[in-house]
């Protein structure tokens, strides 16, 4: 498992978690991420948007162009059933992994 894959997988998971709360647009996801991680996690737009579109291609989110204020249109993303399923699976995997890591690191101390 190389570094970029790890990060990418993590980002997917984080996006899905944010969308589980409710539909949101790209900027909203980005700012929620900062809020929820208390500014510890920050994603660059250069990876956020490709990730969002990749999730959509995989059918884990769907999107709609909706009219927003100021005559602009925004793309709003919604999590799909497949997305929820993946979120649940990967959350479990992640927690199991984190637990193992903690155990190993804790024992080593």
């Amino acid at each position: 498992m190389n570094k970029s894959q790890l990060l990418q997988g993590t980002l997917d998971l984080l996006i899905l978690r944010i969308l589980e709360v409710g539909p949101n647009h790209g900027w909203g996801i980005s700012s929620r991420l900062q809020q929820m991680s208390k500014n510890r996690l920050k994603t660059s737009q250069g990876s956020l948007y490709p990730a969002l579109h990749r999730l959509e291609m995989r059918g884990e989110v769907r999107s709609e162009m909706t009219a927003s204020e100021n005559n602009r249109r925004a793309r709003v993303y919604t999590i799909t059933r497949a997305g929820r399923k993946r979120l649940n699976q990967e959350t479990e995997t992640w927690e199991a992994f984190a637990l193992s890591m903690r155990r190993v690191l804790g024992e080593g101390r």
Partner: protein
Amino acid sequence: MIGRLFAALRGLLRRRRIQAEIAEELRDHLEREVEAHVLRGLPPEEARRLALRDLGGLTQTIEATRAVRATWLDAFWRDLAYAARVLRRSPRFTLTALILLVVAIGSTTAIFSIAYAVLVRPLPYPEADRLVFVAGYDGAGVIWPNFEEWRSRARSFDSLASSLADAVIVTGGPIPRRFESRSVTANFFRVLGVRPVQGRLFDDADARPDAALTAMVSHAFWMRELGGAPGAIGQTLSINRKAFTLIGVLPPGFRYMTPADVYILLEPQVAANYRGMQSRNTRTTLYAVGRLKSGVSVTAARAEMQTIAAALALKYGATAKGSDVTLVALADRVVGDMAPTLTVVTGAVMLLLLIACVNLAGLLLNRSASRAHEFSIRSAIGGSRWALIRQLLIEQALLVVTGGVLGALAGAAILTVLVRVAPREMPRLDEIRLDIVVLTWTTLFSSACAFLFGILPAVKASGVSGQELVVRSGRGSTRPATALRKALMLAEITVATVLLSGAGLMVHTMVRLSRVDPGFDPHNLQTFMFSLTGPQWPDARKQVFYDAVVERLRAVPGVENAAVTYSLPTLGSNWWNVFNFPGKTREDWISVGEFPNAGMVPVTAGYFETLRIPLIKGRYFNRSDTPDSLPVAIVNSSLARKYWLNEDPVGKQVRQGFPTEPFGPWRTIVAVVGDIKQEGVDRETSPQVFMPIVQQPRTTVFAIARTRATVTPSSLEMAIHELDRTIPVFNDRTIDQVMREASSRRRIAMIVLSVFGGVAVLLAAIGIYGVIAQGVAERRQEIGVRMALGATGGQILRLFLRHGLAIVAVGIPCGIVAAVAAARSLASLVFGVTVTDPATLGTAAAVLTAVTLLACYVPACSATRVDPLEALRSE
């Protein structure tokens, strides 16, 4: 899974919109970011600057996002663009391959389209495979009484019809016009399965003796003569001076055997005993066409008809005409004697397709060989085999599709030209189109060849191990199977020999034909036909009229001389009859085994002078030969030699007909004239008896004018119409045209074989050159070493010429054997030369030997100029 597929599909459909939407999405993001900064109290400019920095490279983000959405279609476009670039980078290869594909696909498609339209495509009638053509013994017509017997006895047919080709005079316009016509039984069109576009078909009620006369016309006649008006149905047409009601119009392009404009019923003609049709003792051109009951085979129908014929022979005596019967599928009959030409042409085109594909194969083989290095490197550094094959597939497909499109265009052009030079009498000419099935077939064939030889070697090369690669890298390429290349060269030589010798035979034939002395001067002779039909033309009026016509024609400016004849030279004899000498009885001739017979040709005085037929003895006909003067005749020298070898024929007498049934008076021979090729320049000279037309009047005759300058046919026809406006005049043409048309089957074969033979030789030369040149390129270092070790240029030259000699030594004999085998299909087309003519075969062999050696010599020469130092340094 389905969601994913749906998204991919949506992505594909919205491909163009995606980029714009991503840009919009990011702009929205930017604005929100700015607003957020402003809310936190930053001045707007600062907020924008910050937001832009956070967003990073906008373009890169758009590109990265779009890349996620990329589909297989994008990958395909990328591969296609790469393939186009690769092909553009090697223009010599690309151009040669394209030329080969265009030649292969274009010519084969055009020629096959013709062959398919004429030979293969079913007749334009529904369920045409159930239609059969029935004739009397040896293909002669069937007499009406026998046809009626057939119709009532035969059980094999749903229905049996008959028809005969004729011509009618239609009056009512400013001048009477003659049209080709066909007299048909009432069920004829129903047997063929034709539906009228206007009105109705004949029915049995129309054929009853008390019914009014009815006619149908062709679509062309309806459009041209009747203005295409639906109201024309029910109109009265004056045909042969009788009133016919027009009841229907046939569909456009309808044709049975020969084209005709007017169709009338046969039954009333039989009832009127027209041309003695009720008689058993007559000759006829009536032929039957039947629709077999479904499930009845042609063989079964033939067997039944032969049984019926045998029964008729018993009933009417063995001598009764029509004691035998010929029954063939209608399609076989329609193709007729064009079949040998088409076989030859189709064979030639298949050989050309073969040679082009062989060449293409060689070309691709060489290319794969020179790219093997590239492929092995690509696979060594991790390029997947599939990616490599996909790339090659796309390259070949691009090549084949481009070649296919250009080939189809070339095919259409070739087809247009060929249809233009094709003889008028060629069946179903108007139905020829560039055939899609054929085009697909030839394209698939070439593609299969391209893929087979273009990809397989490359696939093999991509499997080469890294170590082998290093070992081989010195040579720069791998050599494809040498045996395969040699086999390809042999195939090329063999095929080229076959085509070239065929072309040689046809050229020889045409030269021989052009050298045949027709016995008269065939140039500058304008002819047309006219017809003196009807009760208003008693013999006495005809006798005066012929001379009047000749006088008028001679008065036309540019006309040197003119005559009227019953048979046109080279077009065949219109009247063939037996004749007798004084004192000879039937038994005398039976003991000889044959009655004397000859072509009987009534002509006006001045006929021989007009045609420039030499007088050997005696005198030409002149104005002193009148209806009431001594009946006279002129014979040709063939006839004179046959019956009066050591005697003077002048003063002898002949009379037409059998000794027991004479026809006409005893005629005194007044002259012997030179032989002419009456039956056609490729035929044996026939015995001929000429007589003054005033002593033997005929109804439909040819006028011939010897012209000095160009005289339009219409000015000649006008001369006739000045005499009588009611005379139908038709079929104007020159004797040169008649002769050209007669040789058109051969001319087509010659043109096709010569062009294809030339192209085949060129292709073979290119192919051999390519292989040898490749060999020289591959062996540069070896040559360098040899030269460094003291080999002379001559030795190097011999090294490569030996290749050429080896190919010649095997290929030419193969080619000659194949040519002799193939020449049999030319047997009915050649004239004045045997199909195994050693001179022709020898010439073809010599030409190919020279071409092969030249194709080897050029690259071999370049080998002698290899600089040993340079060749070795590049190691």
